[in-house]
């Protein structure tokens, strides 16, 4: 031995850091487990066991002539960041292809953390654009699209505010759904749009966890049952809270205004 660039705790630390970041940016379960496993094996492990679910990671490394070492990691925030996913995937390939020292690996991870993303306002405009174009796609007219754009933009402002206050996602989606429906109905009341349901469906697309449902089914089919069920229940909860939120103004305002 002695030729390996990382000690066992350091290796495990790097593997867990990569796995954790992967989970946080929305990678599939098998990708997290496989990446961590491959990193461990590339750095002289005799065997490695990685178990990942959306909320935590457990990893054990066995190196020859050493006692096995285990680490756990709790994941609290989850989102989608495809750029980071791409960079992490490239990093894990690079770590396997050419051995890096611990400090070098840390430096590479820091580079990924510091990679610039889109600006706040770009994201807000993108939210508006999603709502507007889906409204058009689902058969809304130009007026509907303009209203949906405004709704999407405001929605992002509210979502951002909730994120800062660390509100749970169920409540955030409930309020989001209510906001969308209330705004669409108000626009209909003011005579701006006729088909307010198109505005609602288009705007809901910004929140809908459709992909979480699909991903959870992928996990289930791949045999990652616990991860699949976790994601499925999250998706179901989000979907239900959007629907519940939207139904409040729909029933109340439609009754009041007789739309």
């Amino acid at each position, binding site marked *: 031995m002695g030729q390996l660039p990382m000690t066992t705790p350091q290796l495990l630390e790097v593997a867990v850091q990569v796995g954790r970041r992967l989970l946080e940016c*929305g*990678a*599939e379960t098998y*990708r997290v487990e496989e990446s961590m496993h491959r990193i461990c094996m590339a750095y002289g492990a005799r065997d490695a066991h990685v178990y990942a679910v959306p909320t935590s990671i457990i990893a054990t490394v066995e190196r020859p002539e050493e006692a096995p070492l285990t680490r756990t990691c709790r994941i609290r925030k989850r989102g*989608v*960041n*495809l*750029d*980071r*996913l*791409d960079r992490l*995937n490239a990093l894990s390939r690079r770590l396997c292809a050419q051995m890096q020292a611990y400090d070098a690996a840390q430096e590479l991870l820091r580079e990924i953390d510091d990679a610039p*993303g*889109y600006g706040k306002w*770009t*994201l807000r405009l*993108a*939210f508006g*654009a*999603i709502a507007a*174009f*889906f409204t*058009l*796609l*689902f058969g809304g007219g130009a007026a509907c699209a303009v209203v949906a754009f405004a709704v999407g933009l405001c929605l992002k402002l509210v979502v951002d505010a909730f994120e800062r206050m660390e509100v749970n996602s169920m409540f955030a989606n409930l309020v989001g759904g209510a906001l969308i429906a209330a705004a669409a109905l108000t626009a209909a009341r003011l005579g701006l749009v006729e088909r307010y*349901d198109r505005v*609602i*469906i288009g705007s*809901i*697309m*910004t929140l*809908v966890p*459709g*992909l979480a*449902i*699909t991903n959870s*089914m*992928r996990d289930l*089919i*791949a045999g990652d049952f616990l991860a699949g069920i976790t994601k499925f229940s999250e998706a179901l909860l989000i*979907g239900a809270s*959007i*629907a*519940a939120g*939207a*139904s409040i103004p*729909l*029933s109340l305002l439609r009754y009041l205004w007789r739309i």
Partner: protein
Amino acid sequence: MHLLFETACAFAACLAFGVVFHLRRGKLAGAAAGGALGWLAFRLAAYGLHSDIARYFAATVVVSIYSECMARHFRTPASLYLVIALIPLVPGGGIYDTMETCMLGSPQEAVATGLHTVGIAGALAVGIVLVSSTVQLFHKRVGRR
């Protein structure tokens, strides 16, 4: 003409989704083109397939194959393209309709719409898994991952 307009809308919506999902600029157009392709396939499938679940399935297979090709070409995970290109097919309207029927006090209709929505999600999942498993099968045989 209408089809062209819808496809353009799908492209633009996917482009915006790409930004929200933090996809890098260079890859945005490729991912959004997948979304447009998926929607086009979904609409064109209407000429041959009568069940809309079959249509969703066919469109998903097209999108998945496209994503796998892009992933091979640019050496990135296929899900980068898949996640965005599938969004127009996600049944957001189904969720709305389920809620609407539930609220209007017709639980039977709500269950039927809800199951239909789950069926669409299932068709999407089966389509993705089918293509990605087939691709993996060939890759293992070639001896490269």
